[in-house]
């Protein structure tokens, strides 16, 4: 010990030399964010960034939900005069764009940003400054879109923005440019986050966490990140082409000059279909976590579950044409995509079967998180099966672009992603805040959401079959769609109430909820090994993983590794497959530059919808802020 004390003076204090509360306090100081506005804006703590992401994404969820409510009021009866076509078109565009780009993808990433480092037993996400930057860019993109909407420059061409309707001739003004650049903002954020996840998961796992011990949620995030890396560039290329067509007169989508409007659809759906799985796969990971925790046993079929995730990720790139069955493509090609689209039912089916088998072989505990997962089964399986109908070219020619499709994808996305997400919030809320959410409100929340959802969206299947197309701002009384639409509106109001209840539960439980303790559900993965909420350093010492559910395997003291620096930020970096530790790599300390860089990038994009020269002039502040970001500040993290 005296030897160790002597080495303290060398400013290289290791966690093997101190213990207990001193170690905890010193690490908390090293990894902490500090006080004050500048510190808050400079933070690189994945938990703080994730909380901001979560709150922002839920704000966008409510904005998207309110736009949906406005549309449902308009459609409640035939020839309603509540809102006109111009505003209605903006509203459904805002609804789709917000839900897809500003809520669903970011919220899944937010949960991942919070949980992945905790589940892996590391102290921060890889590239934490990039992480902070990606949040700011996402925030600016979302603000950009909604401020534009408030100023009556809201895009009005649908979240899919088909050319030529979104092109320069039929979309005058800046509305579509706003949409196209908002895409660029959010895709940059998503792509950066995906790279962080991939590197964190491959390199920063706790020692001993071999590939077959990675928690299923983390596997889901890993596969999702690969899907993002290969899918999102498509929409960036497409939206860049669109904005170039609109601003500087290129001809990518102009058939008279050799372009082709279907090129847009190919590029968009090459991204757009994987997008669905980018949203669903993390949710599948949440379902796995919740099912395992509440069935009180390890997942039955870990390997098939992982392989299914990977298979879904791969197959999701072979489906995009099923969004284009009515565009007059060659029949044989369309039939090929029918087969492909149906094929994806197999891995998804395997996942469902494995979860049910896990519940079957376990001893289910009926708490709110599990309720939401059961709701997920009910709704998502139905949505998946109607998806098989849409995969068939003939059936698709009837129901494509009708309310049947609206019903289908809300079953898939709300059932497949939002229900698991709400379950996940109930499940991980104690970890994030240290307090339990109210179980009583939770049950009300679930049943209202479940009934409201089915009442709102089941009738839409029938409306679609009765011939009601999507994206119509009104319909005539003689069409006979009034009753079902009224029913759907009532359902959507109930659904909205359930979300208000959810918000109330979050706010009140955050203040007055029961104190949770480290592991209120007695779950098995590493995030439950640390305190609730976790300290800035996540873990005082890095766990040594011996099993898939370390906390179930190690009922006694958890085995850990030591030897990391205490006075500077260090993380354990290991090998890709075995997670054998090879480096004590330093992790960047807080910096204000990612915020400045995001402002510079945001300003450049904003300017670029007015003049292409903004890209040239904007590159100067972008370069300056990036140099500021990467230039070493002389801190120990920078030098070692």
């Amino acid at each position, binding site marked *: 010990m005296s030897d160790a004390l002597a080495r303290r003076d060398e400013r290289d204090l290791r966690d093997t030399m101190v213990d207990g509360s001193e170690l905890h306090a010193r690490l908390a100081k090293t990894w902490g964010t500090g006080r004050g506005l500048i510190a808050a804006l400079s933070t690189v703590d994945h938990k703080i960034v994730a909380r901001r992401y979560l709150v922002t994404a839920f704000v966008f969820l409510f904005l998207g939900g309110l736009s949906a409510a406005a549309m449902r009021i308009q459609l409640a009866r035939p020839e309603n005069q509540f809102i006109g*076509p*111009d505003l209605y078109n903006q509203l459904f565009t805002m609804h789709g764009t917000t839900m897809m780009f500003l809520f669903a993808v970011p919220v899944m990433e937010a949960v991942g940003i919070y949980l992945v480092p905790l589940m892996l037993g590391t102290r921060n996400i890889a590239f934490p400054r990039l992480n902070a930057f990606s949040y700011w860019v996402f925030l600016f993109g979302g603000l950009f879109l909604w401020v534009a909407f408030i100023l009556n420059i809201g895009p009005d061409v*649908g979240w899919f923005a*088909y050319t*030529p*309707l979104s092109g320069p001739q039929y979309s005058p003004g800046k509305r579509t440019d706003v949409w196209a650049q908002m895409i660029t903002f959010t895709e940059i954020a998503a792509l950066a986050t995906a790279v962080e996840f991939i590197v964190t998961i491959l390199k920063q796992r706790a020692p001993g966490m071999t590939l077959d011990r990675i928690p299923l949620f983390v596997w889901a995030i890993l596969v999702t990140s690969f899907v993002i890396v290969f899918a999102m560039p498509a929409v960036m290329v497409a939206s860049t082409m669109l904005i170039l067509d609109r601003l500087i007169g290129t001809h990518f989508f102009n058939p008279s000059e050799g372009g082709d*409007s*279907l090129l847009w659809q190919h590029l968009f759906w090459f991204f757009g279909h994987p997008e669905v799985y980018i949203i669903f796969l993390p949710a599948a990971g949440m379902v796995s976590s919740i099912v395992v925790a509440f069935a*009180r046993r*390890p997942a*039955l*079929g870990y390997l*098939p579950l992982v392989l299914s995730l990977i298979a879904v990720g791969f197959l999701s790139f072979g489906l995009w044409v099923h969004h284009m069955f*009515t*565009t*007059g493509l060659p029949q044989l090609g369309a*039939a090929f995509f*029918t087969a492909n689209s*149906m*094929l994806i*039912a*197999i891995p998804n*089916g*395997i996942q469902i*079967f494995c979860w*049910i*088998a896990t*519940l*079957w*072989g376990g001893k289910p505990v009926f708490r709110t998180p599990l309720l939401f997962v*059961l709701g997920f*089964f*009910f709704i998502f*399986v*139905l949505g998946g099966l109607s998806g*098989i*109908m849409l995969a*068939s070219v003939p*059936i*698709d*020619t*009837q129901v*494509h*672009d*009708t309310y049947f499709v609206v019903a289908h994808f809300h079953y898939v996305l709300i059932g497949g992603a939002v229900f698991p997400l709400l379950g996940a919030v109930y499940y991980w809320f104690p970890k994030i805040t240290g307090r339990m959410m109210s179980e009583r409100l939770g049950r009300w929340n679930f049943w209202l959401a479940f009934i409201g959802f*089915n009442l709102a969206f089941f009738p839409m299947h*029938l409306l679609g*079959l*009765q*011939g009601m*197309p*999507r994206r*119509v*701002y009104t319909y005539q009384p003689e*069409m*006979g769609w009034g009753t*079902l639409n009224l029913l759907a509106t009532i359902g959507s109001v109930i659904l909205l109430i359930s979300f208000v209840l959810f918000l109330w539960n979050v706010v009140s439980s955050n203040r007055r909820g029961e104190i949770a303790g480290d592991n209120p559900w*007695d779950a*098995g993965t590493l995030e439950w090994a640390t305190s609730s909420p976790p300290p800035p350093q996540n873990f005082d010492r890095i766990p040594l993983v011996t099993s898939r559910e370390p906390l*179930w395997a190690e009922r006694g003291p958890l085995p850990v590794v030591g030897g990391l620096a205490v006075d500077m930020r260090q993380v354990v970096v290991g090998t890709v497959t075995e997670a054998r530790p090879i480096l004590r790599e330093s992790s960047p300390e807080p910096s204000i530059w990612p915020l400045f860089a995001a402002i510079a990038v945001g300003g450049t994009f904003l300017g670029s919808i007015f003049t292409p020269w903004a890209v040239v002039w904007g590159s100067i502040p972008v370069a300056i802020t990036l140099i500021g970001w990467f230039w070493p500040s002389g801190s120990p993290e920078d030098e070692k």
Partner: protein
Amino acid sequence: MSRFSLFLLPAIGFALAGCRGWQSALDAQGPQASELAWLFWIFTWVLGAIWLAVMIALAAALLRSPASRPDPLLVNPAQDRRYAAVVASLAVATGVVVLVLTGLSVVSQRNLFRVEEEAVTIRVTGRQWWWEIRYEEADASRSFTTANEIHLPVGKPVKIILNSADVIHSFWVPSLMGKQDLIKGQENDIRLVADRPGIYRGQCAEFCGLQHAHMGILAVAESQQDFERWRDAQIRPAEPPGDPERQKGQAAFLTQPCIMCHSVRGTPAGGKVAPDLTHVGSRKYLAAGTLPMSRGNLAAWIVDPHGIKPGVNMPTIKLQPDDLNAIASYLEGLK
């Protein structure tokens, strides 16, 4: 579970009610639509049964009395192997179902898009927000243009060529056939047959801008004689008006902005950017399936098109009430 079935009952009731209606995919009135409805119901029953089975399995998994196991890691490997075998066989079963459904879909697709010698060729051009319709004949003098309403002889294959003058639209008359897009710079076609005389409504099914909601089309299926009679009438230019009110209406029509966009064959009105009005009075609806044809609706439409279809390309013009009534009666008489 009883809760779910309680909810499902009214839903099924609505589903059955959905079979009627004049724009319903399940109200099949031709071989193509029947093929589609048949395939739809096969899929619905098979997939519905699967859904029900999954829900029953889930309920059983939740309700069966569990062995008491305090330690979550305490699992019975032999039992797990049995579960794994069940999961594996279910996965294989999923594969078989998917294969069968794919096969059915492909066969159906071939039936649906089978090419038959057509008796009538109709060229439909989508425009924001109406349908330009041209009956094409080898004999050019028997070709003619109309709008928003197609007529077809019962039992005869009809070829519909689809194209767009501006953005993407989609042609969809659910009782006769699935939809197909109209895309500028590309020519799509579909073939369909109507089995029974009747009026079937359709609607644009691809979002096409402000008035996507008001872009309806009527398909009128009628006997061969009725169809021929209709076609001969459509080929003829408009008859000069007989009564003074309509004569006044024609005179007003020809001096107003109307003629900048609309055509009435047999008069100097030769505009090419709006629906041909030569026989507008013979059509059942106005403004692309928006208002039933009547003198009152004609007047309402002319006096305030943007109250009915905000953003439509028809401008609001200044008209004296007398002229308005005269024009409405002139147009109504263009049978």
